[in-house]
């Protein structure tokens, strides 16, 4: 829409108002407000409190898997999922109208509502057959929701002038944390069911090298860094123009292990390493032996810290204040264009699999993001990684040495006895 379309006889003083007016007209034509539904069902579920879980509870519960335990887990999931989605829906409903009617965000809203409706109607699980039926529904739902993250961020970026950037960031953070929580309990239960149904399963405590559902009891930091590192090196070698791929050196307390949801860790470490490798390759264009990336593993009684140091030149000044934001900063509109190219938005992401990717036991929603072309800067890797890191009471900090490189510190709680860090509707309202 052009400001200077000759056919409109705007008076000079209205000319500056014209773009806003035209934009409002244009958007209202495209508006697809989500369907109105009676609020009573939602109200009921929003009133229920969320019962957060800890990692330890997750894996202790599944360690000795009997039929009773499986049914019990099924009913926990049956109650938690609609409760958590209800809180999210209410949060979205309170956003400004103009925001929720954005096509991408309204798509997400509809998806959530559909899921809410199907979950809340699930009958009480009494038998294994009931459980199998429920698992089928949950599994379909998980697949359907794979594209939520890029959709939500696209919608948020498009709405950048409709809401304060801080409120937007807070909303996205809450939503993503809640999303992790739902997927964790859902995927965990599906994994337990699969284990239970697998031939030769008997209810004995799993050995330490096993998974209990999605939780790997002994994640070895060094192994994970090495595997993620190799994968990131491969991706960068194929797609990034610059120097040869830098080496990754790992030292410190290399035998450190801890229980964790493996896919979360792989995503975070993968993002950090890919950022580092890419920065080094671009900073040292043409070099045969760019300086290596140094990874240090430090184990303390209650936590493990992984420090990733690169010499990639540091973070540019203009984006440094906005590292952890989904929508602030001078490059936010460029990200909009890149997001449009993430395949998950288009069709199925199963097609986008780089041969020889890391072997996570179950395809997770994170893979689609990790497998993208590194040239597509989505601006999401860091804030997402931070959310994952903090989800289990850990943390992620970055220190940039401008002109030299970046140090990233990933803190992982070893004990697994901290509850999920969630925000319920009640606590948002209380503020």
């Amino acid at each position: 829409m052009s400001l200077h379309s000759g056919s409109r006889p705007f008076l000079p003083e209205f000319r500056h108002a014209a773009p806003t007016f035209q934009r409002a007209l244009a958007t209202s034509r495209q508006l697809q407000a989500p369907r109105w539904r009676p609020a009573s069902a939602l109200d009921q579920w929003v009133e229920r409190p969320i019962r957060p879980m800890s990692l330890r509870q997750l894996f202790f519960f599944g360690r000795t898997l009997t039929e009773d335990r499986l049914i019990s887990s099924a009913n926990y999931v049956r109650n938690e999922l609609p409760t958590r989605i209800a809180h999210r829906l209410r949060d979205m409903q309170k956003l400004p109208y103009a925001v929720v009617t954005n096509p991408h965000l309204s798509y997400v809203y509809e998806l959530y509502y559909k899921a809410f409706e199907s979950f809340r109607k699930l009958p009480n699980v009494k038998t294994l057959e009931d459980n199998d039926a429920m698992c089928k529904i949950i599994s379909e739902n998980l697949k359907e929701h794979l594209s939520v993250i890029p959709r939500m961020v696209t919608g948020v970026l498009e709405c950048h002038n409709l809401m304060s950037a801080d409120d937007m960031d807070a909303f996205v953070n809450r939503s993503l944390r809640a999303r992790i929580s739902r997927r964790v309990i859902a995927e965990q239960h599906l994994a337990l069911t699969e284990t239970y149904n697998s031939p030769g399963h008997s209810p004995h405590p799993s050995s330490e090298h096993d998974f209990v559902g999605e939780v790997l009891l002994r994640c070895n930091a060094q192994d994970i860094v090495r595997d993620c590192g190799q994968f990131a090196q491969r991706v960068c070698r194929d797609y990034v123009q610059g120097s040869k791929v830098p080496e990754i050196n790992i030292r410190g307390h290399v035998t450190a292990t801890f229980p964790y949801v493996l896919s979360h860790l792989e995503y975070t470490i993968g993002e950090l390493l890919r950022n580092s490798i890419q920065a080094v390759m671009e900073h040292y264009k043409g070099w045969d032996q760019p300086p290596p990336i140094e990874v240090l593993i430090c184990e303390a009684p209650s936590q493990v810290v992984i420090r990733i140091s690169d010499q990639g030149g540091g973070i540019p000044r203009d984006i440094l204040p906005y590292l952890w934001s989904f929508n602030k900063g001078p490059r936010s509109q460029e990200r909009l264009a890149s997001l449009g190219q993430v395949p998950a938005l288009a069709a199925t992401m199963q097609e986008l699999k780089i041969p020889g990717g890391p072997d996570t036991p179950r395809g997770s929603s994170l893979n689609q993001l990790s497998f993208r072309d590194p040239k597509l800067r989505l601006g999401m890797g860091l804030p997402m990684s931070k959310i994952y890191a903090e989800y289990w009471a850990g943390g992620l900090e970055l220190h940039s040495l401008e002109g030299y490189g970046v140090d990233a510190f990933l803190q992982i709680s070893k004990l697994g006895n901290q509850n999920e860090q969630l925000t319920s509707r009640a606590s948002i309202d209380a503020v």
Partner: protein
Amino acid sequence: MVSYAIECHNLGPGNQHGKPPLSDDALLSSANFTLSLLPARLAHRIQRLRNLPFIVVANPHINKIYNNYLHSLSILEPFYQKRISTMEEEEKFTEVMADLVQTHTNTIPTLAQGFLECRKYIDATEITNFLDQHLRARIGTRLIAEQHLALHMASTADARALDSDPYNIGVIDSSLQPARIIRSCEAFVGDICEFKYGVRPKIDMNGSIDATFAHVPVHLEYVLTELIKNAFRATVESGNESHPVEVTLAAAPDVPMSKLDALKQLALADETTLDFTKDGLAEYCTLSEGVHGPINSAPPTITIRIRDRGGGIPPDVLPNIWSYSFTTFNADEAAGTNSVNDGLNAITNGGNPSSIAGLGYGLPLGRAYAEYFGGSIAVQSMHGWGTDVYLSLQGIGKVV
């Protein structure tokens, strides 16, 4: 006196003092500029002190400091009547400046002692808030006074006869090389280590060692001494003196790499407006309390990373590292009057060698100095391994 508003936004173009030696006019201009700023700053300090609990200000040490400020305000009074317009008046004014700087030299150890004695009557948060503000204000006030003193010294008849150092502009060295200061701090702190522990840790430096920028040398020396002190002490006490402390210097692409570059940058501008005082003053223009963090938000230009293998900071200690008078040093030793003064004087005045751990003012005060010109200090500890400290600094008075 307190109602005399701080008009810092209206300082205007009358502050181009230029590089020494200054002409008479320029020197008078500097004197009047200084005179316009100081009384209000002193008055604000006095008011803040008055707001502390009676029992705290009644403590002899705190009371002494309070009276110092009153004294300084009173000796400035004769100059309020009119502009300083003759060189004799300027000479008298400069003497008053010298007296001011001298009187307030030991403010910090004295305040420290006072607060230590009063710790039953005032809680740690209140002390931290007061000191954070007070010490930042003090940095600015001293800088203003010392800058005029330095400009005066460099412009008097004797100084003009000597070759002037093209790099020094009052208290600022415009081609300061951090690497040089790091080496000298390494030696100084190493001496104390050797005296106290019998071992001397080393520093491995890498990165942009030749980087130079404009800064106040004494500030940088203070901060680096404190940080290196912490690193050395941790290294030695954890038995890791064989692992050198690693110091990495990072310079943003626009930082000059040699004295020649720095001089070229200076030469390009005829009228160098080194009105650095504006940076610190902006904090006090809003009369809001507890300003923390970088004062202006311009990006840093030199970052120094100090990495040690000293075992890291235990999680229970970590929340307190930015509080004043928190130190893992033995509290009994610190309580004695003599060691209070010795510890700090040894480090800051190069006096008697003494205990390496002072009063726990090192980190918060270091951060105040770093932040004064838009830098910062960040501490990242890995318990069980070591600590990484990131000191970012911005060059003063960007040449426009």
